[in-house]
């Protein structure tokens, strides 16, 4: 028995938009909207076909796809529709898109701890997500159904891919079949006040970032664990009508339950205050004031990159820890208040009595280690940012050229080791522009491509567009 909206293995698929004929390789899966098949293409380029269930193959969906295909993909991170597929032999329609490489894994594998990414990879993935949705939103488009089910990352380096792009519409047009995925939907959608828009996308994005960095839902605390059977009515209440952040500084009635939400507590005690402040804002003001209270993507970008730049390896066990310069230095950094700069009003609730101590003393979080890391080599650039200098640290245009923020295309500097004296560490110039380096004794030297200078605290570097100082 075969039905008119399903494909059999080997069946030819004519893709007129790409002027090719492919064959169905196999069924990859079935979702709420349709079935997805991998295709064998003439030039072996990895393609997949999504074919809608007849009830989902609406004229509106067709129009959405047509308009997405005409637009260019915001970046290669999106698995964008490439061509519509129609055939008189089948009911409805479908579209083809690129298949993601097998190195991209579902975040559910991280949440189930079946893969072992580093903090650096996770923060890179978070940054890429925020950057991709910033690009999408700045084109006036809205994703509508953002959840952990449709994003993927490479656990080795944090590169991401975004799937299910067929619900992307022009913001405010109220088109499409979906309103979102439970647990990721903004409260104002759940209570029926609005349909998905870019503001609700921002909320879903914050949920995803929290899930990835804390392995816990930001609203699942004591109130969640007191629910015996988590059904739709109780979910609507928890995530829609009475949402309360588990680390709300003014209301601890939904604080994490140590029996079920240990992850939230563990990670909250590891991250520096500046990242916790921005999450507090995302899930307090961000819930109360959907229009103006949400954390913008550009704010997430700066904060996530600062966190990634603060990673250092414990000298004893090698675990990734987060370095924050002492407050006298940190206050000088011009991290805006709204990003959680030190003057921010947002208090961070620390239940752990020794947390302050842990942070100021930089004690390794690894329970088997707990080594005190007193001196961490770092470079401060223009009082704008700081970067911990590890054996594998690289600097990019993002760091040294204020006009090239977020440019990570190729490194301009890397930490290097002295060729004959392994105790001496340096910073190697990988750019075509010479650096002017002022040594502590007042001498000024020029450091050209592939040359390094010794990382002596107090050394100042003129990168051309910015100035740095080595700190310890």
């Amino acid at each position, binding site marked *: 028995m075969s039905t008119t909206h399903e494909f059999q293995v080997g069946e030819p698929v004519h893709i007129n938009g790409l002027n090719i004929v492919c064959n169905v390789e196999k069924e990859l899966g079935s979702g709420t909207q349709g079935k997805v098949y991998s295709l064998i293409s003439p030039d072996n380029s990895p393609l997949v076909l999504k074919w809608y269930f007849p009830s989902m193959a609406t004229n509106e969906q067709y129009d959405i796809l047509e308009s997405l295909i005409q637009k260019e993909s915001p970046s290669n991170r999106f698995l964008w529709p490439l061509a519509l597929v129609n055939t008189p032999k089948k009911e409805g329609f479908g579209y083809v898109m690129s298949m993601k490489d097998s190195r991209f894994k579902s975040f559910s594998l991280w949440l189930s701890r079946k893969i072992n990414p*580093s903090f650096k990879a996770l923060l890179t993935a978070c940054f890429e997500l925020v950057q991709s949705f910033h690009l999408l939103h700045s084109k006036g488009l809205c994703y509508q159904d953002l959840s952990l089910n449709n994003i993927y990352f490479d656990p080795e380096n944090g590169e991401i891919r975004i799937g299910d792009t067929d619900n992307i519409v022009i913001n405010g047009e109220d088109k499409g079949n*979906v*309103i979102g995925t439970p647990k990721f939907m903004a409260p104002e959608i759940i209570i029926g006040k609005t349909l998905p828009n870019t503001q609700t996308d921002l909320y879903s994005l914050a949920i995803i970032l929290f899930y990835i960095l804390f392995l816990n839902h930001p609203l699942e605390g004591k109130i969640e664990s007191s629910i015996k*059977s988590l059904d739709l009515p109780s979910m609507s209440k928890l995530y829609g009508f009475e949402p309360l952040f588990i680390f709300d500084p003014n209301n601890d009635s939904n604080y994490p339950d140590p029996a079920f939400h240990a992850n939230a507590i563990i990670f909250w005690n590891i991250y520096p205050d500046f990242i916790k402040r921005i999450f507090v804002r995302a899930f307090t003001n961000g819930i109360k004031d959907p229009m103006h209270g949400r954390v913008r993507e550009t704010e997430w970008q700066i904060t996530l990159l600062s966190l990634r730049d603060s990673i250092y390896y414990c000298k004893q066990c090698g675990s990734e820890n987060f370095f924050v310069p002492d407050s006298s230095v940190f206050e000088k950094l011009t991290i805006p208040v709204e990003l959680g700069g030190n003057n921010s009003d947002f208090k961070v609730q620390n239940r752990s009595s020794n947390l302050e101590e842990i942070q100021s003393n930089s004690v390794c979080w690894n329970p088997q280690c707990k080594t005190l890391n007193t001196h961490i080599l770092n470079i401060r650039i223009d009082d704008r940012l700081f970067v911990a200098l590890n054996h594998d640290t690289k600097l990019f245009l993002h760091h040294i050229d204020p006009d090239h923020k977020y440019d990570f295309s190729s490194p301009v500097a890397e930490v290097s080791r002295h060729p004959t004296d392994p105790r001496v560490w340096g910073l190697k110039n990988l750019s075509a522009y010479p650096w002017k380096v002022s040594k502590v004794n007042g001498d000024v030297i020029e450091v050209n491509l592939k040359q390094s200078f010794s990382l002596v605290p107090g050394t100042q570097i003129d990168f051309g567009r910015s100035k740095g100082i080595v700190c310890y």
Partner: protein
Amino acid sequence: MTLPGGEISKRELHFIWIVDCSGSMRDDGKIQALNYAIKEAIPHMQKESENNIQANLLISALKFSTGAQWIIPPTRINEFKWTDIEAKGETDLGQAFLLLSEILHIPPMTERGLPPVLVLLSDGQPTDNFKDGLDKLLSEPWGRKAIRVSIAIGEDANTDILQRFIGDGERQPLLARNPESLTKYIKWVSTVVQSASARPKSQQKYYDGSISNVDIPKPPEMISGATDVW
């Protein structure tokens, strides 16, 4: 280096097969088709639960013919094996409901769970007092909250009773006229319905407005051109 913390904490999700193996299931290879369909569904069920960040799936099964018995205790999906069942005896559906109602409270159910999924497969008429059993089942909070799905195997099944098991006005029993559609429906309940309780899926903008415990996507769309085998 491994990062701190552990796996995200999950809720228990009980998925229970309630299988008719009365004598009439011997006709036309119905019981063989059922055994085959459930075995077919297992790998799909495993794959679905792999991506699950919310549920620890536990599968169990009870059969009813003359009386009712548990045949598989709650088992993790990766360890779940279906043993072929044979058909003989009466259709004591009421006994099955009574047996079911004995476990649908805390304990043995967990303090922190998801609505259980109860799947009833039957081809005929109950021969005992099914009504008392059903009343008892629905008097249990977890019985009421459960996602109840029923599949009628062949045209002779009493769909009225299967409808009463589901509850009024929500969904209808699925009518499996032939082994192919039985396989499809079983795959659907074991993946889509499982995940409706366990793993949040995209919600559609236009739904029928009925308020239920769990939002269940539509059953597989099938054309009815196939010849009836049973």
